[in-house]
């Protein structure tokens, strides 16, 4: 009996009762369809709205498929609004954070995971505990510190906060990955005369590359999504990431929902692309970060 058959059987009360199994199968797909509708309809609706003209958006009843396919919202957001700057900023913040955090965290995790010393377990625990510290408790002290240090309303300020936020989480995810690298591999590299740092960059990282790439993507998406702190410290229009900049489309009067939808589409594209390309790896990275010790 194959594994997939067994999975199928789980859903049937009795193996022989085929009638019941079709019913439970239908029930299963109805529930799945409902959940998928809940999860995907908002995305569909955003895409549809972004291809409508403003006149059509403001009509009642709303149309489920655009009557007239139009790119006017995209033309407006990409040419007549500061949206490209916001997207560039988001890319800048997210790329810098994910690369720097993953590199520093790899070095830390490598040391802790492969060369344990007295207290290294406790240090791991400490990194884990930072997860319980709400990022909100950092808002006030960082704002006061930034004001004194002149980092208020600067790119550095945003980057430092993002790094502080993601670094411990990244260590936790990397630990699961590095623990799987066999010690004998490292030993043989040591015998061949590699220095310990060299081993990290030419043995450990290449072996775990797919996993590291996934973790980089996760950190990228988390940094891309950060909102509140950036909203509080950034005033200059040209320094805003997309999550803060999207408020540009919330005017004093009515919101132009087609332009809003177009900018939403543009800002969720990276997530969409990464998830389509690397779904399995992202899932593995997330689970190793959340569940494994």
């Amino acid at each position, binding site marked *: 009996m194959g594994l997939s058959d067994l*999975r199928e059987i789980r859903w049937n009360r009795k193996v022989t009762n085929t009638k019941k199994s079709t019913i439970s199968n239908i029930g*299963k797909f109805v529930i799945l369809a409902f959940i998928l509708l809940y*999860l995907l309809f*908002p*995305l569909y609706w955003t895409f549809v709205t972004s291809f409508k003209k403003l006149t059509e958006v403001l009509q009642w009843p709303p149309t489920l498929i655009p009557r007239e396919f139009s790119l006017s919202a995209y033309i407006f957001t990409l040419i007549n609004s500061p949206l490209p700057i916001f997207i560039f900023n988001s890319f800048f913040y997210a790329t810098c954070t994910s690369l720097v955090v993953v590199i520093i965290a790899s070095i830390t995790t490598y040391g802790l995971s492969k060369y344990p010393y007295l207290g290294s377990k406790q240090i791991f625990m*400490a990194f*884990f505990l930072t997860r319980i510290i709400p990022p909100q*408790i950092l808002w006030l002290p960082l704002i006061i510190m930034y004001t004194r240090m002149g980092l208020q309303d600067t790119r550095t300020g945003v980057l430092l906060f993002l790094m502080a936020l993601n670094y411990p989480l990244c260590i936790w995810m990397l630990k699961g990955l590095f623990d799987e690298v066999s010690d004998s591999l490292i030993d043989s590299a040591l015998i061949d005369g590699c220095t310990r740092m060299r081993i990290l960059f030419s043995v450990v990282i290449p072996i775990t590359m797919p996993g590291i790439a996934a973790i980089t993507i996760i950190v990228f998406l988390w940094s891309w999504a950060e909102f509140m702190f950036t909203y509080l410290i950034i005033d200059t229009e040209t320094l805003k990431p997309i999550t803060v900049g999207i408020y540009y489309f919330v005017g004093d009067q009515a919101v132009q*929902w087609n332009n809003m939808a177009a900018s939403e589409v543009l800002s969720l594209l990276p997530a969409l692309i990464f998830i389509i390309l690397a779904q399995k790896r992202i899932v593995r990275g997330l689970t190793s970060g959340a569940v494994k010790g």
Partner: protein
Amino acid sequence: MLCTIPGLVVVVFLVAYPVCFNIFTSFVKYDNVSPKKFIALGNYQWLLSSEYSDFRLGLKISTIYSFSCATLATLTGLVLAQILYSIRKGKGFFRTATLFSWGIPLVIASFIWKWIFSKDLGILNYLLSPFIEENIAWLTTRGLALLTAIITTTWHHIPFAMIIILAGLESIDPELFEAAVMDGAGYNQIFWSIIIPLNRHQIVVAFTIIWMFTFRTPDVLFSLTGGGPGKNTYHLGIFLVDMIYRYVDFGKAGALGVLLFLTTAVIATPLLYYGIIRPSRN
């Protein structure tokens, strides 16, 4: 051992020091008007006495909001994980399709849903129009506003719960199911005596992480309803922002931060210990 140093620098300067600084601030009268003065627990007293502050209101709303989101997301995630586990065809497609909402920033998600919930032009009111007499103002009606926020936040967190529980399901030895089916166990029996007990850690972890996140993150409420109508969705996080920027009272904001931290720690630490640390030792 040297490898730990760059990391420790980050953590000490950007996490540990600010947290200590915050705790220190919470004992000081620090409002940019009067000179700084040590007032021990004065700020906490002010927050906890219900006459002047919105702390209790915020705590109530944060609690309702976070527990509803975490429960709904975990339950839906559990159901979804089981369905996806049993699907043979199109496995990759379904797993990818159900992951999207996790990757979308909460602020963007709020604006997506804000448009769906819109009173005059919203698609939700249109789809419900056969059943309702006039359009519902989802975002500005008492009670409904919090519900919209819960729907939006749950939407974002379902994939995360699903991923964690699915990983747990896949680590169960399939022979267990085989044995159970051979012994004539029904689906309900399998669910309650195999799936739930063997997945209890994953379920607890998913719940706790989502709960922690929603308890302290006001992003959705901030951009979806702005705390309104009135103060019907006044999350503690919004209160904190108001404390820092509107009232510019850093002492009280510090105390609020500490209380937020303590509440999270008291509830989340035992759950995380149960879900992650204890199982990883065995």
